[in-house]
């Protein structure tokens, strides 16, 4: 028989029971479930499938000329570069890039004030409240506020993403900073290093792996959210998706665009894995050639030693 920790078993069972009771309390009519799979199937087969890949092509005007979605004549050799999917995605990626980078530069100092191993409680608490405040409004609400103030377009989207990034990334960062070993901070404190020196020369190098992976995650998150921000006219691929899920409904095209977003997210994840391999302890190995960064560390080491032998 598998030995079971009794305490853990009871805690687990109680949590599951509690979740079930909450769910039952929330749902009044379980009859809703009836026929749901069939409805979903109909939606998929009639509305979504097959995805309409015309979003990967340029617009053809009545005179037969190819145009970009904004009306400019398509002067690219490859038609894809004039398509809605491409132009929208490029705008979204640019927005996410700018917002993530600016957000990162603001969130690092705020996070360093919020980390309880770097700042006393009277400073840490207001910094945490500020981060929580920025985070508690979803980026779509920020976008709505900025769209009211600035009108439609990428700028309100970028500002919304930036504020949300500060709040969200700041929280992840101060938690990573609190995970830094105490000893280097203490010797720094005794030596008389200033707060910014501790941050720049001790905390950031020590938590670089976490900070980098959070930064890349935030970039990916912002690209995904670019699709949502379009709903309030914040530009990018989200705007086209929004056009297609509103009347006249064109779900097949919206679905195709969502697949494009998915593919881009997967690619960003792969790139992020690659970049992070430089800062993890296992990944920091001597590599024979620049392209060998794509190899797992153990293979790279093997290749390097072979090359040394030669």
């Amino acid at each position: 028989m598998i030995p079971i920790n009794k305490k853990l078993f009871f805690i687990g069972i109680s949590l599951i029971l509690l979740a079930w009771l909450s769910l039952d309390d929330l749902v009044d009519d379980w009859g809703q479930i009836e026929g749901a799979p069939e409805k979903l199937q109909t939606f998929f087969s009639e509305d979504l499938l097959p995805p309409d890949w015309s979003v990967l092509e340029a617009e053809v005007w009545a005179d037969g000329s190819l145009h970009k979605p904004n009306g400019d004549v398509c002067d690219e050799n490859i038609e894809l570069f004039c398509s809605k999917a491409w132009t929208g995605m490029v705008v979204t990626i640019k927005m996410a890039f700018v917002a993530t980078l600016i957000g990162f530069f603001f969130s690092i100092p705020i996070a360093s004030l919020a980390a309880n191993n770097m700042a006393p409680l009277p400073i840490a608490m207001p910094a945490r409240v500020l981060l929580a405040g920025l985070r508690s409004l979803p980026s779509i609400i920020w976008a709505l506020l900025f769209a009211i103030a600035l009108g439609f377009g990428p700028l309100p989207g970028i500002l919304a993403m930036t504020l949300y990034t500060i709040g969200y990334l700041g929280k992840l960062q101060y938690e990573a900073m609190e995970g830094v070993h105490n000893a280097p901070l203490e010797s720094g404190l005794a030596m008389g290093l200033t707060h910014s020196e501790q941050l720049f020369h001790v905390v950031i190098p020590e938590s670089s792996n976490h900070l980098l992976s959070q930064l890349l995650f935030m970039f990916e998150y912002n690209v995904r959210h670019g699709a949502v921000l379009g709903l309030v006219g914040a530009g990018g691929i989200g705007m086209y998706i929004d056009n297609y899920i509103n009347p006249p409904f064109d779900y097949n095209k919206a679905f195709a665009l969502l697949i494009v977003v998915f593919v881009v997210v997967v690619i960003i994840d792969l790139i992020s894995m690659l970049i992070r391999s430089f800062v993890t302890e296992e990944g920091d190995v001597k590599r024979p050639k620049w392209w060998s960064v794509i190899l797992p560390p153990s293979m790279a080491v093997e290749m390097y030693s072979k090359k040394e032998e030669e």
Partner: protein
Amino acid sequence: MQKHLNKNDLLALNRIIRRSHGDGYLVVEKSPSRGGDEVQQIDPESVTLRGLSIGYDKPLVSDINKTIYPGDTIAILGSSGIGKTTLMRTIAGLIRPLSGEISHNYPKRGGIGYIPQRLGLVRHSTVRSNVALGARTRRSRWYPFWFPLDKKLKDDVDNAMRALKILDIADEPVRILSGGQQRRVAIARTLVQRPRIILADEFLGELDKENVNSIITATKEIVDEIGATLVLIEHHEERAIELADRIWRIIDNNLIEEGDSNQ
């Protein structure tokens, strides 16, 4: 002929007197030109522990009355968990004493060098940037934190690394080094800082004899050069006696100085 003594001469003299007379600072204290109770004026750089009681919730060691004179080498002995590290952290200003006071007029920046038991190195940075961190404290606190060090400090960093035989691994990250090499990095970082007092917890750790000797030689040379005070926590009693000119022993909540007839 009148010769003016500079600070380092005074420190060296102080050390010689103390070594040849046992508790030599009494001799300095009672020198006719200066009043017997003006120890602070003779050694404006000393650290005074007055009625000090240390610990976290309840006192580990109480009623410590001691003066640490510039140029002293003090070894703190005692069984584990008795409060040696707590005493050192209190002197370093990392924890507040429960009662009593510590007074010194060392600069807040760079005045105290602290090597904790776990060395406190930035494991993901290179040896060079770890050592450079010590040199940085010799510039004002308004020196921009993103600026690289100037040429003189860079040379000092290189010299310290050369003295501790870590110059050839200067660009390696600290985390891949052996325990002995890491210890050398921590010592180099503190030495290049040129602090007035060096507090080293388990200074030599569990190093082999060869390593110990070369580290001791290198450290002593630089410490003598910069005239720093050295306070060590040491497990090996013989080594402590060999290294230090004062031995503090913590026994049952009390700090007792060996060879001190007042206690």
